[in-house]
């Protein structure tokens, strides 16, 4: 059974890491979690980002957070990627599968997946 003692162990383990995190977060992944996003499937997309960022060991480089509606409800689930010194990338109509790919290619290797971005979606008319 899970116990609060286990949390105590997590605390001990995290002691050093927390210090590290202060100057981390080079990349920020923001998932739209308003009514429109949630109804379109944002919850599993968010959870996939949290899982995959961890399994690729990117926790110190990438932070995953949530935001409300950014006003393009028809493109939900929407995910924005912010990186210092670079232009914001907006991924649209996301799925857990696409999220896995974004972690692997974009967050890990720095290659934007143009096919999933809003610019591309608008060009081909979705």
């Amino acid at each position, binding site marked *: *059974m*899970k116990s*609060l003692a*286990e*949390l*105590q162990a*997590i*605390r001990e*383990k*995290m002691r050093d890491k*927390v210090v590290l995190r202060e100057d981390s977060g080079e990349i920020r992944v923001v998932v739209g*979690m*308003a*009514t*429109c996003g*949630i*109804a379109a499937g944002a*919850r*599993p997309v*968010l*959870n996939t980002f*949290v899982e995959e960022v*961890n399994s690729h060991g990117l*926790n110190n480089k990438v932070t*995953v*957070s*949530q935001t*409300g*509606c*950014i*006003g393009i*409800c028809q493109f939900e689930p929407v995910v924005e990627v912010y990186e210092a010194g670079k232009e914001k990338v907006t991924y649209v109509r996301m799925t857990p599968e696409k999220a896995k790919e974004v972690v692997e290619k974009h967050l890990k290797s720095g290659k934007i997946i143009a096919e999933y971005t809003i610019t591309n979606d608008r060009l081909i008319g979705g």
Partner: protein
Amino acid sequence: MKELSLNILDVAENSVKAKATLTEILLEETEDTLTLEIRDNGTGMDEKTVKSVTDPFYTTRTTRKVGMGVPLLKLAAEQTDGSFSVESSVGEENHGTTVTAVFNKNHLDFTPLGDVVSSITTLVQGHPDTDFYFSHRKGENEVTLDTRELREVLGDVPLNSYEVIKWIEEYLKEQYSSDF
């Protein structure tokens, strides 16, 4: 919404936006009914605002003109011949809002609860600095989570650390598999 747990996630966000320091999500089941209560100690709303939140064309947002969260939950309850109510107070001492929805579980149009564990972990992941109390009761059995207790043990470790989120997920799943 495909699952009631998604409505819960959505409507609980309103509590956080109303600056609640504690949001309680209470589920109580009988043979025939499911009662959902989302109770917060946020800023609360005046009488006029309370009346307008069930109107889909009311929203405080400026990016768009509709606010579907509360109307969708109301619809989900009423389509099972259940009930829905919002109570709120803006008093100096006792401010906050309580949303109550009662569902008839055996009604054809009852939306299944779905993955409520995922909704709870998502709420904590997104709002690590506010507290959540979750309780799901069915007869003698109860599944609970109180982030205030976790915070006490964790000290300055943020609640949205991966390890903590995973712990919460497992903790809730274990309770569901043994008590429900």
